[in-house]
């Protein structure tokens, strides 16, 4: 009972804080955290898919949300800073809330897809290739000057369809499908 009382006390102060200033960041971060749990879970519960594919998809989904949470917070905070340019305190208060919302929307539409295009693929590669043998440097036949590429690097079958994305490719081509 004591635990519930302490919990409800903290919950009360948190609820009051949300009531005073319901920032857009709170809602989107909460939804992203729920996505990080439920999306991979529902993927892993899919019985029709291969286990390897399920693991890879769930990992991508989880990493995406891991990128999204700090991005939402950072974009909201950065946007809020511009409210200091307003001298009138009342206008500054309104601008702070509005800019936080605009920052979060910008993160959702532009920043997170861009970051995911750059970050997710190397991260999944790193996790998937942790136990793989390191590729040997290319051997050069001195006589014929022919370079033989080492074929030791193996990718999981399902990953072979993915292209390595860079920010430049995102900028030029948009979100890859």
């Amino acid at each position: 009972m004591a635990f519930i009382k302490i919990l409800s006390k903290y919950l009360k102060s948190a609820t009051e804080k949300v009531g005073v200033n319901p920032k857009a960041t709170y809602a989107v971060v909460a939804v992203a955290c729920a996505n990080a749990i439920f999306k991979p879970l529902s993927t892993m519960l899919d019985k029709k898919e291969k286990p390897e594919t399920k693991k890879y998809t769930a990992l991508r989904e989880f990493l995406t949300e891991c990128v999204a949470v700090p991005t939402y917070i950072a974009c909201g905070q950065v946007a809020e800073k511009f409210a200091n340019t307003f001298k009138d305190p009342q206008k500054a208060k309104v601008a702070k809330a509005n800019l936080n919302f605009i920052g979060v929307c910008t993160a959702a539409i532009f920043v997170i897809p861009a970051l995911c295009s750059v970050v997710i693929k190397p991260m999944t590669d790193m996790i998937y290739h942790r136990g793989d043998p390191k590729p040997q440097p290319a051997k050069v036949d001195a006589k014929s000057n022919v370079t033989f590429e080492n074929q030791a690097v193996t990718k999981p079958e399902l990953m072979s369809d993915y292209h390595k994305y860079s920010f430049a490719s995102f900028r030029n081509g948009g979100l890859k499908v």
Partner: protein
Amino acid sequence: MTIGSIFTSPAVYGVTQNTAAQVGIETGLKAIGRPGFIVLDNNIDSQTKKYSAMKELLFQLTCLVVSLGVVVPVFKKGSFGIARKLYKDEAVFKAFKTSDEFKAYRSLSEEQKLEKLAEINKNSKTDYKPEDINEHLGKGMIEVSSIVGSMLGLSALSPMISRPFVRPVLKLCGFEKGEGQPASEKEEKKSVDTVA
């Protein structure tokens, strides 16, 4: 209207103080933005682009409708009932039976609030004063219930509902998978799910 006036607009401020509106607008923007990104991609054939963009649009719209149309209102309605059990001594949850009653009270002027409280006191034989009503807690409870509703609606329920619904609708609209489409539906899904 300048950009600066948008930043200080009371109308925009009204929207940003409502969690359900925040989540709705953000999801709506995603529903436009994500298919837009897919259409911008030059490395896939047009048929695949159309299919993926339409699928993403339908998925986001389903999420929006299920979450804001069903889940959030249910949570909002139940919020004061739960709060009454959690905070038994709080006058705000005793004086107002539903969140709508509290919202109506909150929008009143100071004089009107006094009149409303006098009416409540007369009906329920209580003696509430305006300072007894913790408006921040009441407002916070509404917003927290909206956040919890959005979490469950957008993350847990909507994907389950939309998956069996989206594919037949796409077929009905005449959208078929293009040649460049990944072999399995799951591969297609994982490529589309790269954004939060």
